[in-house]
């Protein structure tokens, strides 16, 4: 089903529990299966009702004693008829609901697993996944779909739109009104700097399309871009209203030009600059900060880090500096033994990245440096082909002309070099013969296509005439016989 690129598209897919396992009992069987299906907005049809109303039951749940399986899903895709039984899920009778956890068998887990098959998932070789052929016992009361299964289902159906919204948005402080943030020009682009140099506009507010950020991070599913004493907040590649804002207006006590930042698993924000780091709870600094980086981890570089990365799905924190990286244990407050390791482990990622964050579904890690970003596949442990790409175009929503205009300091310059001068060079190295060939070849090809079409038309016309003659010839004997 999944291999042919099919998906359940109908939001009102119905299911029916056709029987129950006596060992578990009717109520418990139905409760377990309903719970498994409950997170989806599917409809349950009672067998009798569906028969009377003629409603289609697309998923049938039953129990069969077969070959000692825990369960089985039959998925039949009939594109011509959309047969009434598209999928039947059969948790096998021998399994009970209240088996000891060590046995790993639970009717709820069986139902979730088989539902996964019905939705198009195959078996996973990740033993922690619910789609592993021998799924482990999991906490069924606070059941959470393992990451591998989540990635699998999102690969078929895409990321839900709800996940794209921030779960816990940061508070928005009232911005100080400046002439440029008046209601009149709220939707207009920030004023452009003069063409010869990327100088900051009159009131010192930078243009995001100039790039050269200090770092880029993701807090609560929103992108935060830091540059000098300013930061932007972006959602869906759009700068939110009221930004850029001064850093110390939001996080009081935080200095400008921070090196790196990340969101800790407890939801606090950690900022790094030089040999110091700060911890903020929302917008308030924790007492006792800033502290020395050595206090964080004795093996961490004393003079500061380039970037910090929190891999939330697997609970790991990484720090990068130059051509090395460290793995940090948040529980023990120490760096893991065996680190630092060379950056070469992150195949294709340049040294000294300025920002890093993991994608929403956890499949990719994005690294930022200068005006470029790299998309790193966490499974293949390599950069995707075609990268690096422009952060200004892909992340900040800047158009091509703006990106081209602000094309300096592309290789990770931490400081804006105001003395640089833009030089526009127009290269026209295409000889005139090439242009002539570019016109003639398409013309000849078009002519060939026209001749071909005419020939086909002629053949068809002749064929139709012959066919009519044949019909006439065969009709006479039949008429005589009749």
């Amino acid at each position, binding site marked *: 089903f999944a291999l042919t690129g099919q998906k359940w598209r109908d939001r009102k897919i119905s299911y029916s529990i056709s029987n129950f396992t006596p060992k578990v009992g009717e109520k418990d069987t139905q409760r377990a299966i309903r719970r498994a299906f409950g997170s989806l907005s599917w409809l349950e049809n009672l067998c009798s009702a569906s028969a009377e109303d003629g409603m289609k039951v697309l998923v049938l749940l039953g129990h069969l004693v077969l070959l000692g399986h825990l369960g089985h*899903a039959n998925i039949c895709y009939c594109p011509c008829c959309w047969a009434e039984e598209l999928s039947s899920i059969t948790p096998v009778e*021998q399994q009970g609901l209240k088996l000891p956890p060590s046995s790993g068998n639970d009717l709820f887990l069986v139902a979730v697993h088989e539902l996964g098959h019905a939705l198009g998932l195959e078996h996973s070789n990740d033993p922690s996944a619910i789609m592993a*052929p*021998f799924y482990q016992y999991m906490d069924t009361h606070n059941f959470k779909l393992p990451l591998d299964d989540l990635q699998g289902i999102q690969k078929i159906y895409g990321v839900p739109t709800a996940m794209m919204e921030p779960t816990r948005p940061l508070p928005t402080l009232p911005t100080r009104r400046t002439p440029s943030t008046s209601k009149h020009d709220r939707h207009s682009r920030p004023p452009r700097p003069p063409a010869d140099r990327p100088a900051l506009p009159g009131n010192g507010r930078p243009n995001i399309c100039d790039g050269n950020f200090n770092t880029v991070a993701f807090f609560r599913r929103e992108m935060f871009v830091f540059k000098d004493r300013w930061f932007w907040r972006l959602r869906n590649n759009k700068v939110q209203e009221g930004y850029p804002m001064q850093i110390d207006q939001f996080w009081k006590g935080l200095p400008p030009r921070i090196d790196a930042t990340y969101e800790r698993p407890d939801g606090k924000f950690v900022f790094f600059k030089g040999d110091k780091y700060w911890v903020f709870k929302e917008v308030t600094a924790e007492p006792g900060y800033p502290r020395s980086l050595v206090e964080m981890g004795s093996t961490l570089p004393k003079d500061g880090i380039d970037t910090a990365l929190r891999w939330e799905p697997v609970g790991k924190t990484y720090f990068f500096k130059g051509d090395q990286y460290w793995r940090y244990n948040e529980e023990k407050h120490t760096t893991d033994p065996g680190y630092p390791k060379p950056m070469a482990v992150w195949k294709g990622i340049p040294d000294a990245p300025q920002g890093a964050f993991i994608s929403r579904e956890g499949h990719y890690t994005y690294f930022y440096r200068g005006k470029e970003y790299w998309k790193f596949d966490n499974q293949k442990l390599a950069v995707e082909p075609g990268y690096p790409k422009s952060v200004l175009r892909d992340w900040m929503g800047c158009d091509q002309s703006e990106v081209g205009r602000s094309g300096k300091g592309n290789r990770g310059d931490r400081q804006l070099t105001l003395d640089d001068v833009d030089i526009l060079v127009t290269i026209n190295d295409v000889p005139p013969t090439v242009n002539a060939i570019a016109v003639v070849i398409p013309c000849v090809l078009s002519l060939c296509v026209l001749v071909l079409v005419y020939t086909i038309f002629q053949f068809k016309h002749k064929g139709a005439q012959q066919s009519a003659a044949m019909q006439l010839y065969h009709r006479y004997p039949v008429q005589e016989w009749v």
Partner: protein
Amino acid sequence: SVCAEDRTLMVETWLKTYGYLLPHAIRTSDLWQETVLQAAVASMQRFYGIPVTGRLDQTTVEWMRKPRCGVPDHPHASRHQRKRR
């Protein structure tokens, strides 16, 4: 009721059922049969993350005896011929 642990383990059937062995993969030649079975067992061991020996060692047999889902691990294998046709 059928209990997976009590059943006699038919390795060839197991490998065929779960998609590690194509239905007509086993031929008459003993040498060929051994090679194909070894490859199938190794593929199974790789999928379950157990040491890949290509032999029916204790660990492999234990994993094969565990109750599991009836859907094949490699559905592509059984579909291969039909797809070509």
